[in-house]
């Protein structure tokens, strides 16, 4: 066990954990940030997607000891009260069914739009393809990413 100082959602936080503990479990078990979900544990489903210095990464396979001074953003820190254009688009398009994968979908979409504010439909498909949605909300995910991009004008 060691103490890790982390920069999460603009706050300095600490966790006493083993060096190999994935960020996902530090967020959930130690820091009470429960919006980042466990789905597969092997970076195949995207439910645990967070931002590491603005890029979308899988928290389930990212050891806490590898984070260093990088800034982490989770769904809780994406905006105040769900006001990020991607979150607003998700509500407007009424994307969620069960909702379990959606935090990861939103974080993936937000990272895409931060880098590529006007993505082509191929860029949207390429970015969102790795995130699984078992309910099959894919059409609305596509639609919401486009809407969010328009909102960010």
């Amino acid at each position, binding site marked *: *066990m060691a103490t890790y100082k982390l920069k999460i959602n603009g706050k300095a936080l600490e966790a006493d*954990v*083993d060096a*190999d*503990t*994935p960020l996902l*479990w530090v967020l*959930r*078990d*130690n820091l*009470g*940030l*429960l*919006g*980042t*979900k*466990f*789905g*597969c*544990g*092997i970076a*195949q*489903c995207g*439910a645990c997607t967070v931002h590491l210095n603005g890029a979308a990464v899988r928290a389930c396979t990212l050891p806490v000891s590898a984070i260093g001074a990088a800034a982490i953003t*989770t*769904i*809780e820190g994406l905006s105040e*009260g*769900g006001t990020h254009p991607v*979150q607003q688009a*998700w*509500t407007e398009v*009424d994307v*969620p*069914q*069960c*909702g*379990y*994968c*959606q*935090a990861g979908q*939103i974080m993936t979409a937000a990272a895409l739009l931060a880098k590529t504010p006007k993505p082509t439909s*191929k860029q949207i*498909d*390429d970015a*969102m*393809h*790795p*995130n*699984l*949605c*078992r*309910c*099959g*909300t*894919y*059409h*609305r*995910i*596509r639609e919401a990413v486009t809407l969010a991009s328009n909102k960010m004008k």
Partner: protein
Amino acid sequence: MSTHTTTSRRNFLKISGTITSGLLLGFNMSETEAGGLSIIDPENLAAGEIPFNSYLSISPDGLITIFSPNPEVGQNIKTSFPMIVAEELDADWARVHVVQAALDTKKYERQLTGGSGAIPHSWERLRKAGATARYLLTEAAAKRWGVPASSLTTEKSVVTHSETNRSLGYGELAAEAAALSIPAEVKLKDKKDFKLIGTAVRNVDNQDIITGKPIFGMDFYREGMLFAMIQRPVAFGTKIKSVDAAAAKAMPGITDVVTFKNNVAVVGKSTWQVNKARKALKIEYEPDGAIESTADHDRLFKELLDKPEATQRRKDGDVEAAFKSAAKVVRSEFQCPFLPHNPMEPMNFFAHVREDGVELVGPTQTPDLARNETAKLLGIAPDKITLELTRLGGGFGRRLKADYVLEAAELSSIIKAPVKVIWTREDDMGGGSYRPAVRYRFEASLDASGNMTGYRLRGVGINAGNSTREDNFPSGAVDNLLIESIEHKSPITTGAWRAPITNFLAFAEQSFLDEVALAAGQDPVQFRLKLLDRAKTSPVGAIKYDIDRMKGVIQLAADKSGWGTRKGLSQGFSVYFSHRSYVAQVADVEMKQGKPVIQKIHAAVDCGIVVNQSGARQQVRGGVVDGMGHAMFSNLTFKDGAAEQRNFNAFRLIRLKEVPEVDVHFVDNGIDPTGLGEPALPPTGAAVSNAIFKATGKRLRSQPFVLQEELKGVKLGERM
């Protein structure tokens, strides 16, 4: 550590406390006889003395609260139930608040999610509750103003007397309404006057979901709670021989390693520590039953299909004679693999078994069953157990079983501590309760003019029970018919998987009918319509589907897809009646650079009145995506009793780029609504495979399509 508990009990008491001067109406959402309705004194409610299974409250400030008893699994019931109440109440939807109710078997008789049954079951009662509340509020206004109630109108939670230009909000009338008595009869709205039903209303939990609120079972944390993972036998048909837990026990954060039944539970202070320690377990297993592999099942299927004995499910006419005198016989076999449910939220449950009672919290489709089985297991009365329902991160039938609840309860009773048991994805995929693997043999006889004179279906399933649905179309439309099933019992556990049995049977039946239509030289749509006309004019035996409604969706799908008129497109057709709703689908396949690309699926749906256009459309799209994805890609095989695919790197689920456009069309017929959680899924596989056949000449008879011999060298293309 953060502490989070979901709504229910706490809010329940809170609400009964805040409306002391409002209106609280208790009603029975799910009793067999239609219903009791009563105005309730909130104090009695808090004391738990009221025998109602649902509640509608209106507070003095006009906030309307409706308790939704059914588990929310993504079928959107938590939005559509209150919509029905609010419609009859003429409520301002913006001020309607929905609360998930905790389990109370005294109050909720049909508190489960399964069988697409909630809406048809509750439709009338929900309407009556809303209409009664509206009646009381209107009467209260009439009394206050001294005018006849018939001169009043209601809209958006306001009662208006237009002659004198007076109006009052529901909140202002709630206390007076609560002093009135319930009418014996209440008039429901004419369906043409619906304002909210039939519109698109967004998921009431969207805000919580998009901001990452801890609403799922996996998100339940409690101060002092322990974490556990359980090592179950990797191979079905084996049991524990010996356990060496010394290394695991010595690892950091581990508080206990407990063996019970065939489980070895590793308990500790964090999920990751438990996960690591579990890998240090040394467990030996020994045989405890048949240890089967997929190769054994393939062989068994063929042997059993040829066996003389089978359970007869339906027999009309003389099928032997029909085949003897046939001009042509069509014969095909179809096979599907086992499938795990794979809800995105892996199984989990919290249990705290104390001396004085048991607390259970988590995601389940059947809270009632979970509680009763826990009571049986622990040898206590069910009323000593509270069960708090969280939102479910998908279910697909997996959470109809209580196994994972019982494990948590048993473990908590052994370690005498509050504990949350978490399954990994590998546990989930390897842990059973699968969609059963099935093989079907279909035979049809045709006379010289292409009429189907005989139809024979035999299903062989592994732990599938009756693998047929003997009264499904074309039963009733063929003079001579024989339907039989055979079951092979296996240690590999199976269970209901979204649209049980029909999730594959529909594919097989509708693919086979395509083959028969081809052999008869007829258009597949016309062939089905002709059969339905026959069933109407000269029915054979019992007919358990509505012929006109089935024809209705067939015609709608044909019209909307431009069936038979589209140049450069290969179209495949399929239609199915299941779970009380009718769905026809047409798949459009286009050849691009020598590859069949599934461009679009047109779905025509008759579920009666569409309660929520947004939720319903997505249910259909989601069902199509699910049906297509599993038909094309998903495969679970066994080697020496163990599942060979245990995570998403080996088990393929459909992803965004593989999803075609899906156009959804509803039949507008004003019939009382039926469910949509399942009916859109069964027809999809056949629409797709029939279209692929038209495009490539390759007939797919087994799933998943991508692994079939017929598709070797025929690469399915992405939509782009």
